[in-house]
């Protein structure tokens, strides 16, 4: 501790370091996004969006992978939303804090930390092999549903908790039952919060690679049913880039992924702001 700096000088140095760290993070974020977009957007054409890939993805478009992404995501959301929102209602409205709620919360938080490759292993052995669903949209979607369940539980629980208690009291005092209160009062006021959770879940599904490649497969054909194997855009991008199939198509696919993620994030933020503005 040789020299003792004047506290004012230390304050200035600390402030400069902290500001530069924040600027560095923003710089990294924007440099990644701008690089991918500038390299990829010129290759996103109408044909790219509407044609099926041919020659391993070297030519043609990525239509079947867009359909693949949409279908696994849809399956995941349809399965995870009722389970997640139901869990949130149970935790907030139907029980007091107890051992069982602690166990449920612990499970949800543990699920949130499990690496996606482990979800992939589980989805493969459970849905693909044990339940004999094969590499399919259904297996991929169900695996993703388990993966996004904690996100939906957490955001819905927060949303329901922030509904002012007065709303419930008024509904009960008007003779409303618990069920009626939930359907007519709680769900509508918590809706933006619940929707935010769903949107964040969609974002995770669209971005996921490791868990989907082991459960939905990587077939390039257009999927025809829930039992068809499918390749998602993220998986397609990974294969194009890591096997050096086509740098141009890889950039275009990743740019499209980034645009989707941007839209999803903007949507989620608008909803959160609306939720906050409503006075919760």
């Amino acid at each position, binding site marked *: 501790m040789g020299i003792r700096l004047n506290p004012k000088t230390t304050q200035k140095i*600390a402030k400069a370091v902290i500001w530069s760290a924040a600027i560095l993070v923003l710089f990294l974020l924007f440099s990644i996004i701008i690089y991918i977009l500038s390299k990829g957007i010129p290759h996103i054409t109408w044909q790219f969006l509407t044609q099926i890939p041919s020659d391993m993805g070297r030519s043609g478009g990525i239509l079947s992978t867009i359909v693949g992404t949409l279908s696994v995501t849809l399956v995941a959301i349809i399965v995870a939303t009722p389970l997640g929102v139901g869990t949130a209602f149970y935790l907030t409205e139907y029980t007091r804090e107890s051992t069982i709620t602690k166990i449920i919360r612990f499970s949800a938080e543990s699920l949130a930390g499990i690496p996606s490759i482990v979800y992939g292993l589980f989805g493969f052995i459970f849905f693909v092999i044990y339940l004999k669903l094969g590499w399919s949209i259904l297996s991929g979607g169900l695996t993703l549903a388990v993966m996004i369940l904690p996100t939906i539980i957490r955001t819905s629980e927060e949303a329901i908790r922030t509904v002012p208690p007065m709303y419930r009291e008024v509904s009960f005092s008007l003779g409303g039952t618990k069920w009626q209160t939930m359907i007519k009062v709680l769900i509508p006021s918590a809706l933006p919060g619940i929707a935010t959770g769903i949107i964040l879940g969609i974002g995770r599904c669209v971005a996921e690679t490791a868990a989907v490649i082991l459960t939905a497969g990587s077939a390039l054909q257009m999927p025809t049913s829930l039992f068809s194997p499918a390749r998602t855009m993220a998986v397609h991008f990974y294969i194009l880039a890591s096997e050096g199939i086509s740098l141009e198509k890889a950039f275009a696919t990743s740019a499209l992924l980034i645009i989707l993620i941007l839209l999803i994030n903007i949507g989620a933020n608008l909803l959160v702001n609306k939720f906050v503005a409503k006075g919760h």
Partner: protein
Amino acid sequence: MLQGLIHKMKRLGERFPQSLFFIMALSALSALALITIFIFIEGIPLIVKVGFFNFIFGMKWAPSLGQYGIFPMIVGTVLVTLGAIILGVPIALCCSIFLAEFAPRKLSNLVRPAIQLLAGIPSVVFGFWGLIFIVPAIRNYLGGPGLSILAGSIILAIMILPTVISISEVSLLALSPLLKEGAFALGATHWQTIRSVLLPAAKSGILASIILGIGRAVGETMAVIMVLGNAVALPSSILDPARTLTTNIGIEMGYASGDHQQALFATGIVLLVIIMLLNSIAQYAIRRK
């Protein structure tokens, strides 16, 4: 009598959702149980066959010869994660202090969603970006193949930022304003207050954020596969390629069968145990406040 029946129906209608919600609430628990059970059932037989000690501390991974030792991958995971923490945590902590203390409200309201966005970028995109910028830079300026532990650490350092930033920011914001006012009243500068009062008070939350960051780094697969080089050997420097537990599964799961596939599930068991331990410690630290 009719009235009694209606009343009964009504009560049943009220009871029905409660049990329905209870069953739904069991979904997370059942999923966790199923994941643990199925991964263990698939992986344990191989650990028994090879021997626990040989599996964990074995230096040779050669599935075609029936040799399954994952020690090099454990070392790879530890080194890459350590690097990510050393590079990422100081930046993340500065960022959380920035958001909680220094940034004007309007600015922090813009920076926060940007950091959220960083969490949303697909990991394959991070890997690809690293392959194009980080890997050649390391090869040209520092030597070695470029695909290396250092490259993996840099990418993971960026990827753990959102986790560490958001959780430590929340724990800083949750502190009582009295702490700060007290320190100011004693004549402390803003930085002295942060360093000697706020950071110590938010210690357990910050610790939790770092542990969860470690969890993310240990669990990340696709980004690491693309920049780590994936060689199965003990690395001798941070410029050497390496393989982690996750990338071992990610690379070989596509074509493995029989014992080999079980060995990958056994790798998954090790990964799952590490993650569950980290998560439990983090949850404990968060609750302890």
